[in-house]
């Protein structure tokens, strides 16, 4: 039997951590872009559009991420698209993040005083100008802390991509555990690495929040 040193285990997991980070970044950036688009739709007065966005959010918030991953993975295959686990996970987490981010940001836009809408309306600004120059700059200040906080949720969410076969940190931990017969040791390492990734973000989010309230 091949022996693995702790260093071997650690470096192997560190390699897989890169994929966790990559998937998180894709989901965060992609989810942010899609979420921003949805946010703009959410506040138009177009008939039915806001309701459609609200349902989109509810569907992603009301079902387990694991199930969403399965649906995207097998759904894309059903549509004849030959997708890798990486692409499926990226698409799924992007949609998932977009739903949550648009909802977080909706709350932040609602926190902007109604008078700001009225004043900018009275100055004949168009909806997109109002959003771009008046509402979003103010909502942004409120949004930074919860947005950074949500990034932690995304990072932890990427662990589920292991079930469709994507080799990120959790899947790598599983492989190590199978090879070494030391599951506790393997998953302890995995846990520590997640914590090392998430804790600074939580700390930063907390600090931003405190500074905003100060």
């Amino acid at each position, binding site marked *: 039997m091949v022996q693995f040193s702790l260093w071997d285990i650690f470096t192997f997991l560190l390699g897989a951590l890169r994929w966790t980070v990559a998937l998180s970044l894709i989901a965060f950036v992609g989810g942010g872009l899609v979420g921003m688009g949805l946010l703009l739709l959410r506040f138009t007065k177009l008939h039915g559009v806001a309701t459609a966005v609200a349902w989109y959010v509810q569907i992603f918030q009301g079902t387990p991420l694991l199930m969403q991953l399965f649906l995207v993975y097998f759904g894309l295959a059903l549509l004849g698209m030959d997708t890798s686990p990486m692409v499926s996970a990226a698409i799924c987490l992007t949609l998932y993040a977009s739903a949550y981010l648009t909802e977080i940001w909706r709350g932040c836009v609602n926190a902007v005083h109604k*008078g700001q809408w*009225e*004043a900018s*309306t009275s*100055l004949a600004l*168009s909806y997109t*100008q109002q959003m771009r*120059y008046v509402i979003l700059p103010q909502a942004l200040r409120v949004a930074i802390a919860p947005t950074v906080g949500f990034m932690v949720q995304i990072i932890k969410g990427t662990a589920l991509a292991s079930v469709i076969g994507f080799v990120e940190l959790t899947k790598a931990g599983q492989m190590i555990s199978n090879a070494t017969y030391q599951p506790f040791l393997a998953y302890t390492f995995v846990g520590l690495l997640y914590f090392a990734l998430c804790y600074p973000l939580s700390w930063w989010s907390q600090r931003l929040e405190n500074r905003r309230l100060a």
Partner: protein
Amino acid sequence: MTEPQNPPFALVDIGGLHKSFGPTEVLKGIDLQVSRKEVVCIIGKSGSGKSTLLRCINGLETFEKGSLCVDGQPLRHGDANAMRALRQQVGMIFQSFNLFPHLSAGRNVMLAPTLVKDIPKDEARTRAQALLERVGLGPFFDRMPDQLSGGQQQRVAIARALAMDPTVLLCDEITSALDPELVGEVLQVVEMLANEGMTLILVTHEMAFARKVSDRVVFMHLGLIHEAGTPDDIFNRPQTAELRQFLSAL
């Protein structure tokens, strides 16, 4: 209510205006014509529909029945472009100032002209500076709103509205949120505008001011125009019991 001294063409022409919030009817058929360069003050108890009427004129509120024309153009709620065209003509100043808190005083004034009228930044800046000087705030271009007193903020709001070159300016209780010692500086600016021939429609609780600047005072009661006339008529010779009661309660 056409008065003989008014020219036949009204800048703001409101006819049979009805407005409800749910089951509550707040405007029950308003007829009001405001001529160019006229200064009209709307007075009345809170809940009489004064502010709602004002907010209908620039489309911040929709209404169910009646007509509303500004400079001959009927108000069309469904049409975003028509509403933006209307709002370039109708400026509004609010009780709570509503300055954009993330922009300096000068940038508050510059924003709409650069975005809506495509005026180049340099020119907009020069004009904003001139407008701030006009309201007595020349040195405050770079101050943020939270570094200004209420009276100063409201004067920036006036400059911001003037930057769009409106033909009529709506003032919705613009001194009600101010400390008493700051009311004067804002009213002074409004009076200056009135003297320069700006068309003004003001909802106000400042009766002395209404008496001084108005060409016409309109008393609203329970969603209707109850009495209207010159300041002299309204304040010295009230015709109805409701107006007498309102004036005596002040």
